[in-house]
């Protein structure tokens, strides 16, 4: 995580971002509901979630985005800062699922003093099914 000097130069288009594995639990989903004051029952009441057609309580869209942001942030370390995260949720994730956040560098750019790295990012389940594809951008400190 401690890479600042030469981080931008060391990166090549096509490089993989170190993966981040997350295992959402009932407690985590409750904590995220509380921290965001999201009181929608589908995130902490299994009976309601099932009645709503879900397998169990659902991982929040926003929590998946935070997982992706954490992956990018740990990768950039002290060399830069996450400046943009885009993602769309295509499938559900439930307590007990093992989610892996991954990314791949698709573009490096320099505009004046500003250096940026754009990555394709996604959350996948154990079976390899991608449930949240997106795009992330890290801006390097100049």
């Amino acid at each position: 995580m401690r890479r600042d000097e030469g981080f931008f130069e060391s990166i090549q288009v096509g490089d993989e971002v170190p993966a981040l594995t997350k295992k959402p639990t009932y407690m985590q989903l409750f904590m995220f509901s509380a921290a965001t004051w999201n009181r929608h029952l589908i995130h902490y009441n299994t009976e309601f979630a099932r009645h709503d057609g879900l397998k169990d309580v659902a991982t929040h869209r926003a929590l998946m985005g935070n997982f992706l942001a954490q992956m990018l942030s740990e990768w950039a370390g002290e060399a830069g800062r996450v400046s943009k995260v885009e993602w769309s949720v295509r499938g559900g994730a439930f307590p007990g699922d093992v989610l892996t956040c991954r990314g791949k560098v698709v573009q490096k750019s320099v505009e004046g003093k500003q250096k940026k790295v754009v990555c394709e990012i996604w959350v996948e389940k154990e079976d390899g099914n991608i449930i949240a594809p997106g795009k992330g951008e890290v801006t390097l400190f100049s």
Partner: protein
Amino acid sequence: MEDIPDEAKAMIGGERVNVYEITKKDIRRFAQATGDKNPLYVDEEFAKKTRYGRIIAPPLFCHAFAFEDVPAEDLREDGLPVEIDVPLPVKRAIGGASSFEVGEPISPGDSITVTKKIIDIYTKKGKTGKLYFIVIDTVYRNQKGDMVAREKATYIQR
């Protein structure tokens, strides 16, 4: 747009504004809730030695203020956030998407003004019937007027 009830259409463009004072506790709880153990978010001594010189919040911390803290009795029975409680002929919220821009860093003591509005409501045909999309634009600014975050979130209901 012709598929959208008039009462729903009337909600487009209406702004909701809220102000929140940021504490160390807010940041710590958010970091714990997302399972992010970076000491920069919680450890003052550690943070002092970084380029920021102080505790800062995780990149998507503004999600902590994405949903308004209205009293429980103002929520629908299923607890659906008021922001997306739009009169549409649908019952269930599914998936969604987001485009989140991160601006100036946020630290304890900051005062964040949250300005949010529905910018679009539209429909599309899905596999199991009509889907309704609600697009909410939320801008977060600190006490100096600097943008700290902006999110365009799309919620899907069916």
